[in-house]
């Protein structure tokens, strides 16, 4: 049997599995230590598990309905779109790296890595121009956010020797 409308089918599957996960965590699985679940309570005295459990059940049901109707739809439409893993990877990995490195190495360096890294995902990547943009932008951000708006963002690497420089003190 072929899936009639793959987009709807898999979309429904995503919803249903998310609903299932939320409901199961709220309900808990007996015997599994880390899946204790939350107290359900009664409608009059709801525990923390009540609302999320039933929402999860509803989401699971809706997802199942979407998946089933998607499966049975007429053929030839709703083909899956291609995932562009390259762009996805470079942008998300750079964002994650920025989050991890911001405190240890400071915004100036982390920002440059973020921009150069994400630019690797572009079709027309050129190292020189990416670097130039990156340097320009981190300086701009430092001036606007740290010097201007006084947001406490670390600028320099977290090394004691550097903290005596005025530039590094946020």
């Amino acid at each position, binding site marked *: 049997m072929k899936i009639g409308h793959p987009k709807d089918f898999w979309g429904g599957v995503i919803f249903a599995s998310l609903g299932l996960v939320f409901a199961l965590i709220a309900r808990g699985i007996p015997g599994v230590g880390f899946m204790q679940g*939350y107290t359900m309570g009664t409608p009059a005295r709801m525990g*923390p598990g009540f609302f999320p459990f039933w929402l999860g059940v509803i989401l699971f049901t809706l997802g199942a309905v979407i998946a089933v109707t998607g499966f049975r739809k007429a053929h030839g439409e709703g083909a899956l*779109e291609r995932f562009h893993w390259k762009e996805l990877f470079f*942008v*998300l990995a750079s*964002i*994650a790296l920025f989050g991890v490195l911001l405190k240890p190495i400071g915004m100036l360096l982390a920002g440059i890595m973020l921009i150069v890294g994400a630019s690797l995902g572009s079709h027309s990547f050129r190292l020189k121009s990416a670097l130039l943009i990156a340097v320009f932008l981190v300086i701009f951000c430092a001036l606007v956010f740290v010097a201007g708006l006084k947001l406490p963002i670390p600028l320099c690497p977290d090394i004691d020797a550097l903290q005596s420089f005025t530039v590094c003190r946020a």
Partner: protein
Amino acid sequence: MELVNHLMLGFGVALTWSNIMYCLIGCLLGTLIGVLPGIGPVATIAMLLPATFALHPVSALIMLAGIYYGAQYGGSTTSILVNLPGEVSSVVTCLDGYQMARKGQAGKALGIAALGSFFAGSVATMLIAGFAPPLAELALKFGPSDYFSLMVLGLIAAVVLAHGSLIKAIAMIILGLLLGLIGTDVNSGVARYSFNMPELIDGIGIGTVAMGVFGFSEIIRNLEQGADREIFTKGVKGLLPNWQDIKQSAMPILRGTILGSALGILPGGGPILGSFSAYTLEKKLAKDPSRFGKGAIEGVAAPESANNAAAQTSFIPLLTLGIPSTPTMALMIGAMIIHGIQPGPQIMTARPDLFWGMIASMWVGNLMLVILNLPMIGMWVKLLTVKYDYLFPAILIFCCVGVYSINNAPMDVLLAGLFGFIGYVFIKFDMEPAPLLLGYVLGPMMEENLRRALLLSRGDPKVFFTRPISLSLLIVAALLLVIVMAPSIAKKREEVFVADT
């Protein structure tokens, strides 16, 4: 007169030099970011939120409101010049606006959009001033069950207006509600869905979710499309529409304003429905409907006025009931809470300076947009011609720094990245993510009110049907659903969204 006194108080707050400055900066920044292709008001506000942290709450809200209008106007500019709507409410503007731009009338289109928006904004501001106080008084009579039903109605209304599949939109809202529950449960102190991660115990900030789903995923989408778009920068001169154009647009602007204001008040209504129905109405009333879609000035004037009017009046449910009616308003609630203000009916009496100051600043902001944009449009256009390779690094780093500074938490940047991935997957499977944000804000509120309602009724669910306010709200919600699911209307709804995009 009481209204006049209130407005005087408001203008007294809004017209101090510093607040005028913040309003101006907000409008400027909002337009600047909003003009960038693929960045709608939600991402703009999320990105600029940290810029308001250092301010006094009143000034911060005034600046945020300025950012919001600026972003809206910037979005219209992009629609007209690049045929790329920043959000659903300016989709219709693309139809005739882009065609006008192709005919070399871009300036005229932008000018009439600015003037129409200003007129609509002025009328809507007066409406807020008039309607908010009695509504807030009514809201004080609301019990928990009424609030719960109101939120159900709001969510249903939002779903009905979302484009695309109805059932997927409902599922998206439920998912939003669930995500909103992450973090410590207020009643029992249990940390839900936080997997022992200290960063998750306070829940995920709405700015983080918004930035990921609407900012990061959009960057990836734009990168994968690669090619630069055709932009019409010629004919942007001559911004002022001539007498003939104004005569032709006057009635559409007026009708758009009325329609938009009315629909904006509805919970869930908002700018989307306003602009779509204003466009449809003008097309129906026109002597020669075939002109529409080929550059009819009414096709720009009416929806632009309507979405601006609705954008304004959607503050009414936010300020009086504390319930957001659009994803943007959901973000506004988040911003208010960060500044220590809990939106709701009590805000008007507890903080009159803030309430009326914000309303007065709405009008000031609208005026500023006209004054600013007529001369500055050339600059925005230049910005549009900048290659995406130069633009997206800026968007990216502003988003990252912005997310980090909301809580000074590096973890938030990682979470926003995760939501970026989720948002990308949603788009690939045709799952419109806008309703998620609404559900996200309403999740904890709905649970709290459901709990209280059932506690008061000792677990009897009939309480939702015996209280008159609650019952009538639920009936309206049910009617909406029935109407939308009726086959003939479902087909019509499909047509409006498909044929016009």
